[in-house]
């Protein structure tokens, strides 16, 4: 897939549904959307009747020409995300600009090296896009996702991730506040040891994509380096810029 120039598009909301207790899944019909690579993001721009505008960036969960799916977390004290999570209805039109970003991107067929995805909370959205692209392309690279999330109710794309899991894609969850009944680990933060035991080892030379809050990314990447992964194999994306 070649680089596509970002451009403005008019998107029509075709479906909005709760994704977690404070996140929504928006399915957008965008006739002019060219499709985008897994891991890219886009800007959503809202315009008030008096011309006031607010723009925020969101990762793309899945995209094909003409269609975009977003997973949007409501930020406390936010301006755009509360509107997208609570106010938007099917049939509404939104302006989007993209696709953006071709660095934090996974492309099928690049190498046979394993790919380790590490997500904190809503940081799973671009990583889910990569896992879905991996399955859609039947790419032979082994994939793993380590997903740190506060409780089972906060898991994004639960059914889709379960459906993707298989011989070439393993999913491990870490529940930081409340684990599901019968879970063999108590709830608690990710540790260096549990990171080491649920991710590809350094000698397997995985390419690693980490996405989450700044605190999560800083902590996880420092451990990855201590465990022996090479800095240039680690790509990061942080949310919560606004």
């Amino acid at each position, binding site marked *: 897939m070649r*680089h596509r*120039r*970002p451009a*403005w598009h*008019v998107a029509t909301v075709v479906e909005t549904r709760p994704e977690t207790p404070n996140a929504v899944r928006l399915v957008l019909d965008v006739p002019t959307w060219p499709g985008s690579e897994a891991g890219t993001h886009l*800007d959503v*721009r*809202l*315009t*008030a*009747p008096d*011309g*006031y*505008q*607010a*723009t*925020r*960036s969101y990762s793309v969960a899945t995209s094909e020409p003409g269609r975009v799916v977003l997973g949007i977390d409501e930020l406390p004290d936010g*301006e755009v995300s509360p*509107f997208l999570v609570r*106010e*938007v*209805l099917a049939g*509404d*039109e*939104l*302006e989007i600009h993209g696709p*953006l*970003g*071709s*660095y*934090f991107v996974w492309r099928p067929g690049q190498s046979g090296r394993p790919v380790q995805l590490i997500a904190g909370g809503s940081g799973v959205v671009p990583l889910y896009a990569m896992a879905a692209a991996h399955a859609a392309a039947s790419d032979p690279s082994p994939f793993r996702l380590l997903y740190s999330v506060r409780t089972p109710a906060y898991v994004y794309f639960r059914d889709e991730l379960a459906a993707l899991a298989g011989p070439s894609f393993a999913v491990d969850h870490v529940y930081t506040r409340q684990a599901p009944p019968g879970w063999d680990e108590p709830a608690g933060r990710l540790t260096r040891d549990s990171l080491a035991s649920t991710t590809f080892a350094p000698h397997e030379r995985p390419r690693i994509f980490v996405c989450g809050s*700044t605190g999560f990314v*800083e902590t996880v*990447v*420092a451990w*990855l*380096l201590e465990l022996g992964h090479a*800095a*240039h194999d*680690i*790509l*990061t994306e*942080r949310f*919560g*810029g*606004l």
Partner: protein
Amino acid sequence: MSLTTRGFSGRRREPDDRLPPGQTLVQRWPVLSAGPTPNVHTDTWDFVIRDEGGTEHHWSWDQLLALGVEDITVDIHCVTHWSKLDMSWRGVSLDKLFENVETEDAYVMARSYGGYTTNLPLEDLLDGQAWIAIEAEGEPLDPEHGGPARLLVPHLYFWKSAKWIRGLTMMPTNDSGFWEQYGYHLYGDPWKEERYS
């Protein structure tokens, strides 16, 4: 093109003519970076300006500070739509570093520990427009924010203010740096909304 969004009024606030188009005011300081935060120590820190003849001008941390650290108060505009006004910084003006550098080249590639690069016209780094910043808001720069030292070029989008700066290489043409190769604007003027190429 501007489509009114049904039901959106936005957070009511006074219009601020210090905010470039598409920007939103923040109080906290968000972090964005493409990879691991490099661990850079001031005792081994080395800053180099390399000219077209291959001559290298080096400064250690202490030599940098000896050039004179000044107080700077500027507005910061990030391409991801946040702006932070009246940030207080301390740093060394690039005018001082370029004082004895002879160059005909019009462009500079800023290079960072960790491999990040970004391109700028030389004239945007001179005449009191750019610094090597070592403190922000009264504290030494955190590693996440580019410490111990980052470039500070506040009149351009903040990705031009390279974190973990280690040097500047003169170049005759405006070659693309890291984000510029990934579709971001070659220059990045926030007032013209030069976000993407």
